[in-house]
């Protein structure tokens, strides 16, 4: 069933593009990946919107959670008032889940599309739509070489003076995954010790390494898919959110920094749709909130260093006030 719905159509599409682009499997794979990502734009847009909305709501959520720590029911009501609904937020994960079968389907079709072994060739024969390929005999064998790489094997560049091969594509997979994450995920507004911030940090470290591990172990065609998909996502997110991007020093696994646009969530006034409504409601609570008004702007627009300085100033002012009263 999975083969019929996902793997076979992908395999045939991949090979059809391969014949259109002069028997260049890498180019065919890149074009198919771009095509698949374009078809998935409605889903990814929904995911990105949900992600952006979540980021915009984070300061408010934190504020409400801190304030109503001992009143869970009240907390829920207040969270609902700002438009935060965990169930609907989970809906934002759905597009990610949908991408997994696509990823598996792509991998299967890459392996079938470049049959390196007899069994893979047999599977290709069973997958192919004969009507799409009147000149099937000339399609076989599929040319899967790209520079030093055999796309049906994990990428390794072997040099005479090294006992091991150098994994070039897996490095690019890690790099583009990090850049994609950095662009789409602004630093959390928490103090660095809260659960969300910790989770985000570990995700941002683990995900690129995990994809890098996949790239090391599986056919390098999969790495081409990962890299292309990451670049398409970066471009798509960059174009759609160009007004909210800021060029910043971006750390790559703590090894070095590069200048890269990262996402800065919109202010209340600039946000739209449910997120805008979400900003209105807590305004009523703002007078009763412990944090002064400046913090609200600081978390949304100012840089991290600026925020820290302001918070320190606020704390100092508060301590001084408390000292005066005593």
């Amino acid at each position, binding site marked *: 069933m999975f083969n019929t719905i996902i793997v076979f159509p992908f395999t045939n599409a991949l090979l059809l593009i391969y014949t259109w682009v002069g028997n260049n499997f890498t180019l065919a794979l890149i074009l198919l990946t771009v095509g698949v990502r374009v078809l998935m734009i409605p889903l990814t847009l929904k995911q990105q919107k949900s992600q952006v909305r979540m980021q915009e709501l984070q300061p408010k959520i934190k504020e409400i959670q801190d304030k109503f720590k001992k009143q869970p029911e009240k907390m829920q009501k207040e969270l609902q008032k700002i438009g935060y609904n965990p169930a609907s937020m989970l809906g934002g994960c759905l597009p990610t889940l949908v991408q997994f079968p696509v990823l598996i389907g792509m991998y299967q079709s890459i392996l079938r599309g470049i049959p390196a*072994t007899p069994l*893979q060739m047999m599977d290709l024969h069973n997958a192919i739509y004969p009507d799409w390929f009147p000149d099937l*005999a000339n399609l076989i064998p599929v040319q899967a070489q790209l520079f030093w790489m055999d796309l*049906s094997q994990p990428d390794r560049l072997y040099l005479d003076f090294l006992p091991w091969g150098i*994994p070039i594509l897996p490095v690019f997979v890690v790099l583009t995954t990090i850049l994609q994450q950095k662009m789409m995920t602004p630093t959390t507004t928490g103090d660095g010790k809260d659960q969300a911030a910790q989770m985000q940090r570990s995700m941002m470290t683990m995900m690129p390494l995990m994809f890098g*591990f996949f790239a*090391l172990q599986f056919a390098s065609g999969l790495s081409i898919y990962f890299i292309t998909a990451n670049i398409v996502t970066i471009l798509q997110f960059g174009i759609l959110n160009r007004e909210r991007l800021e060029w910043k020093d971006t750390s790559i696994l703590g*090894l070095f920094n590069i200048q890269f646009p990262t996402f800065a969530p919109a202010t209340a006034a600039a946000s739209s749709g449910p997120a805008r409504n979400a900003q209105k409601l807590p305004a009523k609570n703002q007078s009763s909130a412990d944090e002064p008004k400046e913090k609200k702007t600081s978390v949304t627009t100012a840089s991290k260093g600026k925020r820290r300085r302001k918070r320190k100033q606020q704390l100092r002012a508060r301590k001084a006030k408390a000292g005066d009263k005593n």
Partner: protein
Amino acid sequence: MQTSTFFRAALLLIGALLISACGGQVLGTSWPNMSVEGNTLYIANNDSVHAINIQNGTSRWQFPREANNVATQFYAEPTLTDNLVVVSSFNQLAFALDQQGAIQWEFDGEPVRTTTAPSATSSAHGFTYLVSGETLFALNLENGVEAWQFNADNSLWGPPSSNDDLLFLPSMDHILYALDPATGTEVWQQEFEGALASIPTQEAGILYVGSLSNNVYAVDAATGSLRWKAQTNDWVWSSPTIQGDRLYFGDLSGTVYAVEAETGRGIWTANLDSAIRGATAVSVDGAVFVNSEEGFVYSIDADTGALNWQVEIDPETGERLLSNPVLADDLVLIAALNGTHLVYAYNQSTGALVWQFDPDR
């Protein structure tokens, strides 16, 4: 560079190198392949080669004795010479074993394991010929020392066949090469419409070769000129079998063909349930045995194409039968891919199951 950054970079580098060195190969996969000599069946499958007593289906020996990480991916048909069994793996290793399964010599085509590629062997002129990747190695049969090698433009999946004068090497780049067996020098080449994945059949100065272009070709062995071609419904992956003045072969559409060897003119066809990847085995009693991808074994009358009998190996597991059936005594031996058992022995006349072999029991 700060110390912490240095350590982080070093840790990542070491981790990446370890993972690169330990893994990083998509293992070659194929189906089991068999050869028979006397009372022993040799079958190469996955991480081992088994010698099996044909009388009762019991194991004589297994190579390697214990599974290891180096000698793996044995799928190529074992090559039998007077006193050696030559087996090759998909990671460019070849081993010559004696009748007890002890190593006499071994050959490593690529000391640094960079890839995995289908391999196959054959033997003639005092050499064992090993194809792996795009290279044909001629190995001295006595000691496994490489005498020469020939590099094609694309993958080689089928081993060369030979006559007294030449070697005939099929290639996935659609070309049939004729080589000098002593030096590996190319004598002639003939290009066809499709990839050639199996060993050419050689008889009386004519080569018969199946192709992934829906054709079987007959070629003059001395010059490479085309004698005739017979069109089929689908890919012909296996080697045609010659018996008398007829040629028998199956294609991936599930059709079995009998044609005149001299002209390629069709005599009969039989349509079966699913793809016939393996070769046909023809008995002296006039029966053609084939196995189909979806798990059926057929006995067909060689004269008329009428069905003698058919059995389904195991309807429960849906085993794939992609290997060449092998005849020994009054048995037809069938190897199954990922089946409940590895080998099934059926009576040639009745189709009754005689024994089955499972390496794990």
